[in-house]
């Protein structure tokens, strides 16, 4: 899967789980400040990403993830 397609898929998960408009899901968007996502929203997002991309994400890997770009890098590294 190429990066663009992967990001689109990522965006889809974010839109569904976080209930935000697709336009808001930009690489530098911050989960807390820009997407109004709290820690449990992130857990749910990760679950959705795991299912969507068929990957596994350890709890520990989420530490320090604050932006969409950081989350997407984490996911694409596993593809």
């Amino acid at each position, binding site marked *: 899967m190429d990066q663009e397609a992967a990001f689109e898929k990522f965006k889809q998960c974010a839109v569904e789980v976080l209930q935000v408009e697709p336009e808001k899901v930009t690489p530098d968007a911050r989960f807390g400040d820009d997407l109004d996502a*709290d*820690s*449990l929203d992130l*857990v*749910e997002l*990760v*679950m959705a990403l795991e299912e969507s991309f068929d990957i596994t994400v350890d*709890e520990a890997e989420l530490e320090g993830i604050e932006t969409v770009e950081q989350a997407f890098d984490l996911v694409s590294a596993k593809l």
Partner: protein
Amino acid sequence: MDIQTTRGCVITGWGTSLPETVITNDDLSKTLDTNDQWIRERTGIRERRIATGPFAQPPTDPRTSPSPPGGIGTTATLAEGAAREAMKSAGLEPQDIDLMILCTTTPDQSVPATSSALSAALNLRCGAFDLNAACSGFVYGLVAASGFIGSGLNRILLVGAETLSRIVDWDDRGTAVVFGDAAGAVVVETVPGKGSLLGWDLGVDGTLQSILYGDLGGYLVMEGQEVFRRAVRAVIDSARTAMERAKVDPDDIALFVPHQANSRIIDAVCARLGIPVERSAMTLDRTGNTSAASIPFALADAVDRGRVSDGDLILMSGFGAGMTWASAVWRWGR
């Protein structure tokens, strides 16, 4: 698995009990770095009832709560209240009960089982034991009760009761805002034929002990986010298994009674199972997470509010420390 029985079981009575002391989120914000909005958004809890600890009236030191003076402590007391209501609602006297099962993870003593004190308080004339499967306890107990009935008993008193306030670190905002005390009870009686229990699933994954535990004499320790995602997954798998075994679909479920741990978990589970969240029982806003008491409490509450009619299918799903999980599809009615 195919449930083969000529001795089915039905629920003929139900009851609940809560301690008097109400602790609101604002009360907790006085000593903890938290606030009402934060708690409500992350858990759905507005208030909880507690029987012990610094917020009790009068305050008690939960670490040294006395051994039951004269035989009955807070868990047994709460259990007694719910049990009496359940027996009354079933129209039964103590001597009519063939077995009592107390589902709890917060016994009043290490030895003997708290069901002993409860049995004495209720003046029962039958066997009794404690069952500890943490927050899955009640559904484990329901399945166990159905087995006992299958092998010849007629009337079983099944109680879920907890004094979680006794093992909560009231300085730890992660757990102090979540847990509460309560009890719920049902009477389960035999009927000819298949009865109410249509399908069930019990499970445990002991490799996940560390995400939610409490050592003897210690406090509850919980990795909230890890518990959240494990719980959502475990409940969904377990609920689906029970429904498959019962040969029903999520659409057929009239009432979903999940363990009342966190409204965000319930929302996530409902969304993924395809059960509208409006069909879920929800009492945790006023009780907090009461472990093994939560499902019987929520069930009794829903029934009393007229949310179930005879013939309706109920899906109960518990999940908790262990990590344990348990689900049952139950057709309501006698």
